[in-house]
């Protein structure tokens, strides 16, 4: 029983992490049709910026309490900035050429981890976090790490914020229309570029937040962390139905749980295999993902 509880709780935590990573990806993919391979890089930038701030380089920031919150905010801000720069410098000049946009992000995805590893070394760095979050709490006999709760909370907040953004503002609409026919959107008198940049920035912010909290989750940061999370984020995005944020949340939880249970109960830890098989099966049965939104 305790094992099942532990697996379920940590599976949810893992799902929350996947969702945090996938949310921005899903947003950008769903609205802009850009499968952003640089998402992992943005994640890593967020993680390193948070780590840098939390290990005492930023005045006021630190590894505990308000200092840590400040560090996370700083990391998110840096990641957002990076996303904006990325959009302005690479995505914008390539509007209307979706394949090239994707490829440009592939290039960034290669270059950024290499740069990080050139500056801070290829090794993992311990990630300072508040002591309050490093303990465990008991639940039905299982000892569950506290930071999983933080992840779950953050995931819920991000989900809510993205839904509000999409539901209450015109930007989502503008970007979706812009992907279909940019010229026509401008011909309606709308500055579609601003909306694109904004969406990219929000996606980047979500990625960076995911990176910062991922550091907490793993207890360390390393240059390849973002990229290795990316593949599961893809799985989640696609399973969730091509850019449906709610679908991504659902898929993230599913993937987290399946992976955790399969890892534990199959003899050789076939969790990730189970996940990709699940993805393939789902796509073959329902090519549009769980929520069935347009591919």
């Amino acid at each position, binding site marked *: 029983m305790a094992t099942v509880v532990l*697996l379920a709780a940590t599976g949810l935590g893992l799902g929350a992490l996947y969702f945090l990573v996938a949310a921005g990806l899903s947003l950008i993919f769903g609205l802009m049709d850009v499968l952003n391979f640089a998402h992992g890089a943005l994640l890593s930038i967020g993680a390193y910026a948070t780590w840098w701030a939390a290990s005492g380089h930023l005045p006021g920031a630190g590894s505990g309490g308000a200092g840590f919150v400040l560090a996370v905010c700083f990391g998110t801000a840096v990641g957002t900035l990076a996303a904006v720069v990325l959009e302005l410098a690479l995505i914008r000049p390539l509007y209307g050429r979706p394949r090239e946009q994707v490829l440009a992000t592939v290039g960034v995805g290669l270059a950024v981890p290499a740069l990080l590893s050139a500056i801070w070394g*290829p090794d*993992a760095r311990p990630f300072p976090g508040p002591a309050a979050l490093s303990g*465990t709490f008991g639940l039905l006999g299982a000892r569950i790490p506290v930071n999983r709760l933080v992840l779950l909370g953050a995931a819920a907040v991000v989900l809510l914020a993205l839904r509000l953004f999409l539901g209450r503002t015109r930007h989502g609409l503008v970007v979706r229309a812009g992907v279909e026919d940019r010229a026509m959107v401008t011909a309606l008198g709308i500055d579609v570029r601003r909306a694109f940049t904004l969406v990219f920035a929000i996606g980047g912010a979500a990625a960076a937040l995911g990176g910062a909290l991922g550091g907490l989750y793993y207890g360390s940061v390393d240059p390849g962390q973002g990229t*290795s999370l990316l593949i599961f984020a893809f799985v989640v995005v696609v399973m969730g139905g091509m850019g449906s944020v709610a679908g991504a949340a659902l898929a993230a939880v599913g993937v987290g749980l399946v992976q955790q249970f399969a890892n534990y109960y199959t003899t050789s830890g076939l969790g990730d295999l189970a996940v990709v098989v699940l993805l393939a099966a789902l796509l073959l049965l329902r090519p549009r993902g769980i929520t069935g939104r347009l591919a």
Partner: protein
Amino acid sequence: GCSKAGTAGSPSSGGGDAKSGAAAVDVGLVYSRSGPLAAYGKQYIDGFHAGLDYATHGTGKAGGHEIRVTEQDDAGDPAKAVAAAKTLIGKGTKIIAGTTDSGVALQLAPLAAQNHVLYIAGPAATDALTGLNAYTFRSGRQSYQDILTAGSLLGGTGGKKVVVLTQNSAFGQANVAAVKEVLGSGQGATVDSVLAPPSAGDLTPFAQQVKSKKPDLVFVAWAGASAPALWTALDQQGVVTSTKVVTGLAGIASYPLFGAAGSKVSFLAHYFPGAGNNPVEKAMLDGIAKAGGTPDLFSPDGFTAAQMIVHAVEAGGATDPAAMAKALEGWSFQGPKGDEQVRAADHALLQPMFTATLTGTGAAAEPQLVSRLPKEAVNPPMKQMAG
């Protein structure tokens, strides 16, 4: 001008460039200057230069031959390593050393045999390199030596229950196999294993699984970036407090990654600065420090490689790799870790190993030597030399 296909640029054999019988010897170093193992590559190369300086007494010459070192980056990619090695061999290099990555080393070794050049593998720990062929040697330790050291920490493993916690990869499986062989059939312990997928994000359940097996000794063999998550999980689930946990001590950068668990774990160590405590080690530490480097886990691997090359040239001559190999077989010497020997039968490098504890946390974490195991205590099983 034209030449025979594929031979352009190779030195004409028996050529006249052997001035006064003391032609330079080319040594090619293929190692990771970039890529995931770049940090290890740096340790290796720093150690190598210090070792070369030490073994040639600062002259850069062995047996009158100048040692000319060419460095090539393999970026952890076997294809690049093979291309680099072919370039070197094509240019007439007779001695190749290096590589941190076991996969790369295993591809270079056959190449060395095919082309009759001496190959001295770097920190690659795979046992498969031992006894692979007549031209292949190693300058680092192999997994068996790690495991024998771990066994020594248990103080007699007979009848005890050992659980190996590792990743489900070739590296992990090799460790399990080695533990079964050394501690299981060799010393009568019951060996069980918990294999986590290498890419698993959350290791808490595996920590839980280990705990539920109630072992006397947990041997953790872990590679890669998820180490901090593992140690956090082991600490949180109370594994490190309820049983004896042993693992290998990696480089300086990894000390803080053990977090709170660090002080509760017993370490076996291939090497850490200060562990050797002998004049050769001192020479190595000084040499590296003088060149602006930092001595670390794999410094001795580079240092020893240089020692072996210098000996091979001095005793085996500058031109014939087979003679060089002969000269190395059975050679005993004083290395930075202590008394070392190249086992004649399978080219295993017999060497002392260490056990240690970690004191302090974060940046202040530092290993303390517990014991020094002489090379005889950690003799890897003998292998039949292939081909």
